């Protein structure tokens, strides 16, 4: 047997049956041991657990291994865990390679093919591992400054929180006014706080804060740069000469907010009958209403019977609800409307006792603290509830009765599916939440957008306020519908991440960037031509060991994206990506085609 | 099922004419105290509400109703209203076996004895002991109930009564909750077992207590008889539906649908019998109903008297 040059340790996880139910883990271990570079192969019920990690640490410390391959779940879950373990063993975290044998093997294949494939993936990871070398994170100076895009409550709160940590913040708002959607709200569910009071408190703080610069009426035109060193081009609408402002910043928080859904013409009679209005319109009416009469008045007319219809433009179902002109459908729940509807109903019933209210819902979603109480209160206030199914929504039509210009017919689930008619003189539609269209900005910044058209976080639990692009975060209703308190929590969470990132004044980045083999580089310049990031790769004159000036490629690591466009074109194979080298892939393919471990 | 309209009519008429829902004249039903020398003055008035006394008659009438439920005969019920109440009542009284009537007296005698043993300063005034009208209330004859309750309450008030001992749950509920609400007259109402102060013993037996709905759920006093029993060393077995969650014996449905009543009763008896212990009731309706199903049941007062 030949002496093993590399010392790769292979660690295979049972994942509590998740893997071992379909992959013969012990068999895979035995096959891995036969691989030319593997000196140790071990298994564990949970590789990510402390005892699992401890195995790796022990083997590294005792010198049995100098490269680590863990075969377990998707690398997105535990790559950092194992890199951390390697670091704790005093080794360089980048001597690590991951084999994904759960999401890409045991959960999709069964029986012998699963075991064979797991073994091959480990062989291939091992082939890559032997080329791994210790790397050091790239140190990038970061501007201790953050930019918050969007001046609604989430944006304001984010700005205040980051500034509270002694970091300068610029807050950018497209409209002339800070406060966003909260400006159009009145008494908030469930505790009755006034939106205006909340805004006043926060806006006073943010405008008075010395570390916060506010640009209202300002649009972000362009974004460039990278973590710690972003650059934004701003355009002030008030500026007649349209001179763009440039802003250098270390981190960006997207807090671009949302808008209320606009029903299409004829949706529950909207745009067809003037007595059909949206919930935001009702809230505006309530804010403005100073009448001391016992009935709510709309356009001078007292309202005797009001029907409120839930889930308008939310929870839409393909095949039942017609899509918008652009083909979109709001399949999500808008989260806040149930409580807002009940809150409005309670206000009306308590202020205008002669106005009766019928609420037609699919599910009452008073999920949060103090919200079920709103529902109870509405019942105590004699609001009548009726329930409809998505495929048989209430029908709003004209009524012959002069007292009630409209009637709403509903097949009421609560009344044993009987058809009931409610005469009405006002119909209010609980219109949902839609994200502001930030496609332009998002595509410039490479931010993912979900199928629901909201900005998409990396992972709802692991990294709920982060984007895959380092240094850019998100908060508030640009991510999903949420109420004011929830948006503020998201703001706090985004702010804490941004603060941690910027607090030191420098950032450590993944070292996966291009590196030039100066022995091989002949200065062709093909790589520089192929490079997609301006400034990341340049041709420089250097003095070769013979003392002669030659041209050679040089990488600016903080700028390099690590895409590898350069590696593909170098005729000498003199440039490659650290940790993701072309050579490694070639060897991986060799391991895959060689069936040595699959027998 | 009988037509409630007819039943209510008869009951209301009876109460109006004879102060008794079944038309039984009080002098015929209320005789339990006659051989006891009960004090006529005391801190508390013992107020039986005549429920224990009426129980055997209810049973007789149910037997007849049961025969005719859901038969064309049920329709003849409506003619009952043309028969004077006291006549039908006396008929009912005559049809009820004397043995049953005698048995019905025993709990009342027991309770008087237990109160004496517990040195409760109480009196009994047959002239003040009236039916509470509760059945009218349960049937929805609000006007009939209020008219009757007002009469009863006024008499008690005029007699200067402040504190009342009740024995059955229905009367207790009527006097405690309904009288203040509908007559505006309030008494301090205490179920008899709450006043018992018996010498502690160690009987070492176990019984299954069936809580009446009104004591268990409405008046929330079902833990008190348990304490009284435990003081005598009598364990009460735990069943799923007890206390606030007690199951109805079916009794109150008797007059409208004896079949339904039987159904409910049988289910309840089955549950009570799972423990294998003697069953104890403390409501005349429950007692009668559970007995009817053949359960081994006796009144709480009888058990207490035996071990006090």
């Amino acid at each position, binding site marked *: 047997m030949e002496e093993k040059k590399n010392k790769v340790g292979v660690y295979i996880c049972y994942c509590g049956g998740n893997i071992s139910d379909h992959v013969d883990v012990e068999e895979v271990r035995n096959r891995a041991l036969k691989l030319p570079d593997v000196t140790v192969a071990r298994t564990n019920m949970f590789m990510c657990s402390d005892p699992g990690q401890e195995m790796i640490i022990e083997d590294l410390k005792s010198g049995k291994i100098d490269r680590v391959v863990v075969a377990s779940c998707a690398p*997105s879950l535990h790559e950092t865990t194992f890199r951390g373990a390697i670091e704790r063993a005093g080794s360089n975290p980048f001597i690590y390679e991951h084999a*994904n044998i759960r999401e890409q093997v045991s959960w999709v294949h069964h029986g012998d093919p699963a075991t*064979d494939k797991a073994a091959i993936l480990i062989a291939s990871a091992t082939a890559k591992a032997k080329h791994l070398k210790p790397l050091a994170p790239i140190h990038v100076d970061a501007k201790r400054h953050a930019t918050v895009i969007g001046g609604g409550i989430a944006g304001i709160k984010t700005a205040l929180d980051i500034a509270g940590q002694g970091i300068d913040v610029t807050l950018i708002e497209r409209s002339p006014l800070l406060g966003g959607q909260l400006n159009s709200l009145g008494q908030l569910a469930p505790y009755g706080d006034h939106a205006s009071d909340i805004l006043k408190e926060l806006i006073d703080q943010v405008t008075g804060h010395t570390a916060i610069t506010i640009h209202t009426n300002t649009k972000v035109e362009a974004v460039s740069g990278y973590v710690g060193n972003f650059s934004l081009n701003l355009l002030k609408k008030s500026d007649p000469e349209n001179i763009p402002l440039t802003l250098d910043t270390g981190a960006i928080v997207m807090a671009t907010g949302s808008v209320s859904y606009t029903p299409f013409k004829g949706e529950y009679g909207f745009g067809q009958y003037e007595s059909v209005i949206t919930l935001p319109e009702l809230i505006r009416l309530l804010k403005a209403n100073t009448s001391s009469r016992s009935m709510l008045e709309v356009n001078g007319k007292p309202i005797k019977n009001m029907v409120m219809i839930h889930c308008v433009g939310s929870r839409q179902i393909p095949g039942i609800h017609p899509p918008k002109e652009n083909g979109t459908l709001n399949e999500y729940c808008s989260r806040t409307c149930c409580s807002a509807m009940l809150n409005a109903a309670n206000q009306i019933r308590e202020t205008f006792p002669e106005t009766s209210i019928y609420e037609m819902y699919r599910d009452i979603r008073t999920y949060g603290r103090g919200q079920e109480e709103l529902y109870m209160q509405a019942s105590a206030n004699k609001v009548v509830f009726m329930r409809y199914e998505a495929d048989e929504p209430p029908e709003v039509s004209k009524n012959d009765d002069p007292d009630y210009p409209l009637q709403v017919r509903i097949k009421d689930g609560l009344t044993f599916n009987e058809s009931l008619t409610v005469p009405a003189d006002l119909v209010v539609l609980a219109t949902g939440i839609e994200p502001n269209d930030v496609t332009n900005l998002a595509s410039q910044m490479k931010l993912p957008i979900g199928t629901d058209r909201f900005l998409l976080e990396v992972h709802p639990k692991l990294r709920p306020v982060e984007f895959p692009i380092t240094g850019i975060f998100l908060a508030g209703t640009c991510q999903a519908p949420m109420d004011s308190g929830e948006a503020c929590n998201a703001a706090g969470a985004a702010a804490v991440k941004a603060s941690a990132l910027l607090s030191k004044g420098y950032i450590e980045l993944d070292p996966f960037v291009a590196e030039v083999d100066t022995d091989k580089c002949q200065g062709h310049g093909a790589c520089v031509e192929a490079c997609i990031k301006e400034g990341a790769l340049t041709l420089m004159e250097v003095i070769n060991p013979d003392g002669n000036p030659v041209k050679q490629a040089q990488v600016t690591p903080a700028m390099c994206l690590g*895409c590898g*466009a350069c*590696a*593909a074109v170098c005729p000498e194979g003199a440039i490659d990506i650290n940790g993701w080298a072309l050579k490694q892939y070639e060897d991986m*393919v060799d391991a895959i085609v060689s*069936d040595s471990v699959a027998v | 099922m009988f037509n409630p309209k007819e039943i209510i009519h008869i009951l209301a008429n009876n109460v109006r004419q004879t102060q008794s829902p079944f038309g039984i004249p009080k002098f015929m039903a209320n005789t339990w105290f006659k051989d006891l020398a009960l004090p006529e003055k005391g801190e508390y008035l013992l107020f039986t509400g005549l429920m224990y006394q009426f129980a055997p008659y209810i049973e007789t009438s149910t037997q007849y109703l049961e025969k005719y439920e859901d038969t064309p005969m049920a329709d003849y019920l409506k003619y009952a209203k043309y028969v004077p109440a006291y006549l039908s009542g006396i008929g009912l009284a005559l049809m009820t076996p004397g043995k049953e009537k005698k048995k019905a007296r025993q709990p009342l005698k027991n309770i008087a004895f237990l109160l004496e043993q517990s040195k409760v300063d109480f009196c009994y005034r047959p002239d003040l002991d009236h039916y509470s009208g509760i059945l009218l209330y349960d049937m929805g004859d609000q006007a009939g109930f209020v008219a009757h309750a007002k009469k009863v309450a006024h008499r008690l008030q005029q007699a200067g009564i402040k504190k009342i001992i009740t024995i059955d749950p229905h009367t207790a509920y009527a006097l405690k909750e309904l009288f203040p609400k509908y007559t505006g007259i309030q008494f301090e109402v205490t179920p008899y077992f709450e006043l018992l102060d018996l010498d502690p013993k160690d009987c070492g037996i176990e019984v299954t207590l069936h809580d009446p709905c009104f004591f268990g759920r409405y008046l929330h006093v079902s833990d008190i008889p348990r304490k009284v029993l435990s003081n005598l060393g009598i364990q009460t077995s735990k069943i799923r539906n007890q206390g606030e969650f007690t199951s109805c014996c079916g009794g109150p449905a008797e007059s409208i649908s004896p079949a339904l009543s039987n159904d409910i009763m049988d289910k309840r008896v089955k549950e009570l019998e799972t423990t294998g212990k003697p069953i104890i009731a403390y409501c005349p309706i429950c007692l009668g109903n559970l007995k009817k199903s053949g359960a081994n049941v006796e009144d709480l007062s009888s058990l207490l008297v035996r071990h006090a």
Partner: protein
Amino acid sequence: MSPQAEKEDNKILILATETCAYPGADSVGQAHSPYPANTYILRVRAPVLFPESFYFDCFKKGISGIIIMSCGEECPYDGAYKALAKRLDAVYKKMKEMAIDLRRLRLTAICTVCNRAFLKEVNDMDKSVRELGPPLVNPSL
């Protein structure tokens, strides 16, 4: 036939981008949707890394089919996708010359939640390579 060939002739190599397609494949796993096991997914930062020769080497080594699962226009490396597309044009051209069936190489965009698209691509390729068999590319070419 060699014993190895009996094992699995038709290997499919999938180059899946780290930000989109690779988590997309994970998402298929999370949904426990089965697909052929002759697929080998390599996590790549951007497929622009691979020179033309890489693909031919793969075919020479015995890989039956290659699917490049990129981020498409969502690619975090601005411009990389264009370069990749251009390179693949050249690859296809050469494949034609070498009489390698064009179905053996696919470029597609797979997002993080594109389960159905992923399955379709994989199954289609599997069908193709089963029909075509292993590539017989002259190693000297």
